[in-house]
């Protein structure tokens, strides 16, 4: 920990932590999905090792073919496609969550890595920071 503090004192160079953002909420019904996405975009400015996880109702955030005109809210599903431009390319989806909702990778707006629950568990366990929405 002390060498990390030294690095911080030297202007933040060199410390790269593993950050995981866990998304478990459907879009639109609550503000969590949109706010979580905004925080991920902000985190990109800090050059950290960022992963995004979509599990439970969070997998609904990535569905393609969205049209939000009728409910007059922002369609932020397109923003997930912009993540790549911010070097956020580690997107993981839990298979069990997709199965429970009758969804497959073909239904999603971005390329993701599909993990089984055990793989997802170990990926979570190896993070330095996990932030949940």
């Amino acid at each position, binding site marked *: 920990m002390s060498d990390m503090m030294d690095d911080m004192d030297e202007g933040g160079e060199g410390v790269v932590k593993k950050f995981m953002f866990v998304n478990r909420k459907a879009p639109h019904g609550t503000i969590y999905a949109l706010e979580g996405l905004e925080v991920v975009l902000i985190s990109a400015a800090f050059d950290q090792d960022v992963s995004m996880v979509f599990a439970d109702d969070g997998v609904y955030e990535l569905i393609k*073919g969205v049209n939000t005109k009728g409910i007059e809210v922002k369609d932020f599903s397109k923003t997930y496609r912009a993540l790549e431009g911010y070097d956020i390319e580690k997107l993981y989806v839990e298979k069990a969550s997709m199965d429970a909702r*009758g969804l497959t990778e073909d239904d999603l707006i971005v390329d993701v890595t599909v993990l089984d629950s055990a793989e997802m568990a170990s990926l979570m366990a190896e993070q330095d920071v996990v932030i949940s929405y």
Partner: protein
Amino acid sequence: MLHIVNKSATERNSLESALRLATKGSAVLLIEDAVYAATKGSVAATKVQAAMADLQVYALGPDLDARGMSARVLDGVKVVDYGGFVDLVTEHNSCQSWL
């Protein structure tokens, strides 16, 4: 009685309670995150399908569109727009929102 449910059935138990406590011939309107329950392949769809023997189930179209779910609606579920929502409210003596 018109029962209105707005929470995801895979996150809360409001739909389950509504279906359990709705009397035969009642209407159930799914709005907001509750519309996912009316889509094919969802674990909640099984419960909705079973309930349709006794209840008429409706889902709000604009909420389905906003979630990319319009093409996946279960057979037997009637999709209504905001005008249809108002009609349902006026056609029934009372309504209950399962928050």
